[in-house]
């Protein structure tokens, strides 16, 4: 899975990555997370646009179990007064920033924990909204479901990508391993 020879790596006794040392990442991690982040950003941008234009051009069936307008115009379309579509946009923008190749190469040890915590919060929000669709609104929004699936995939990829990352190595050697 990982392309690094882990014998070269080292982490301080307290688990903090030494200054200048970076974890060697699986080769697929950055491109997959960036792709998922971009897709999520596009769908969230579309949903945000529709939210602020009263679903004027929302492409989705109505009147059945799948009814995007019913979901996006429901009382559950805002969270603490903020449109959830906008929250999704912010979520994917931050996620994308955290998953850029340059971000994956950064040596700060806390970044992995922050990234995982961020996508876990996103997953929790997605599960909350799925619950609202199933038990409160009684309708499914396909665009929202796309966002939920992308969030779930991002969580899985970040989770396993970070676990499968090699130990911290000095930046120059890390670069060689890449």
């Amino acid at each position, binding site marked *: 899975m990982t392309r690094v020879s882990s014998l070269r790596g080292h982490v301080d006794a307290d688990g903090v990555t030494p200054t200048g040392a970076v974890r060697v990442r699986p080769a697929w991690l950055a491109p997959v997370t960036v792709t998922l982040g971009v897709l999520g950003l596009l769908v969230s941008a579309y949903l945000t646009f529709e939210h602020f234009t009263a679903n004027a051009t929302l492409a989705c069936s109505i009147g059945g179990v799948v009814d995007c307008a*019913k979901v996006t*115009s*429901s*009382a559950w379309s805002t969270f603490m007064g903020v449109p959830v579509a906008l929250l999704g946009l912010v979520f994917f923008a931050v996620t994308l920033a955290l998953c850029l190749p340059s971000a994956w190469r950064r040596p700060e040890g806390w970044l992995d924990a922050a990234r995982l915590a961020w996508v876990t919060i996103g997953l929790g929000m997605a599960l909350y909204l*799925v*619950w609202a669709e199933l*038990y409160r609104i*009684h309708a499914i929004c396909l665009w929202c479901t796309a966002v939920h699936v992308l969030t779930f995939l991002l969580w899985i990829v970040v*989770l396993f990508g970070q676990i499968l990352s090699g130990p911290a190595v000095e930046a120059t050697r890390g670069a060689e391993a890449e």
Partner: protein
Amino acid sequence: MAKSNRAETAARAAQLRAEAARKERQRTQVIAASVAVVVVVIAVIVGIAISNRPQATPAATGGAAALQKLETLPASLLDSAPAPSPSQAPAKLNGGTALTQDGKPKVLYVGAEYCPFCAMERWALIGALSRFGTFTGVTETTSASDDVHPNTPTFSFKDAKFASDVVAFEAVETQDREKKPLQTLEGENLALFQKFNPQGGIPWITYGGTHATNGATVDANAFEGKTYDQIIAGISDPKSDIGKTVTPAINMITAQICAQTKNQPANVCTSQGVVAASVLLKR
């Protein structure tokens, strides 16, 4: 030389032990992460399966007690209600003429049992009309399960009768909670509805044929997920979310009806909450 070799061998062995420990940690983390993924997937699948189970009509319990309290709200409670917002005031109907029944101004309600916004508006309407007379035949029900704000606890006017010395009331529930046809809007009522509400939105309530509201005048979000007990408790508490929207709506409707009844009965129409609401009336 031999000493140097021993040191290198020891270092190498330590490195191998550390690597083995890291591999073991990684293996444990992969297993834990896999379990977490499986738990999330199973939770979603179970959630979807449960939500798809056919459900019986939700029991509308507590409605009778709530109705009894709604029909006898203390004047002091309504006087302490927050002032209504301008959006709660009925609009003046351009070209509207007096709508009467038995010589009394008539309040005409057009709605449906499935309709969640009708469900919410009935709370305010019953609260207001009960200050002018007495209801009989009001039954408890909930709005549709498959619409927005599903299963909102409310009452049906299908078999309702209203007795009052100063105002008449007629209700037409056009569809039941399954959205099947129920009562027919016809004659003068139909003509009024089509003339002043061509888009056909409900609830539509005209006060004496000269003023009307289209849609709920209460905040729908305040009702979300509430039971009969919670709604009536909220109405009884002017500081609650429901109290902040329903009691002002009751005063607003009361003020509008008072404008039609020439301020009869006086004790209702000169009460503090009604007088405060009357400044918003569209003259």
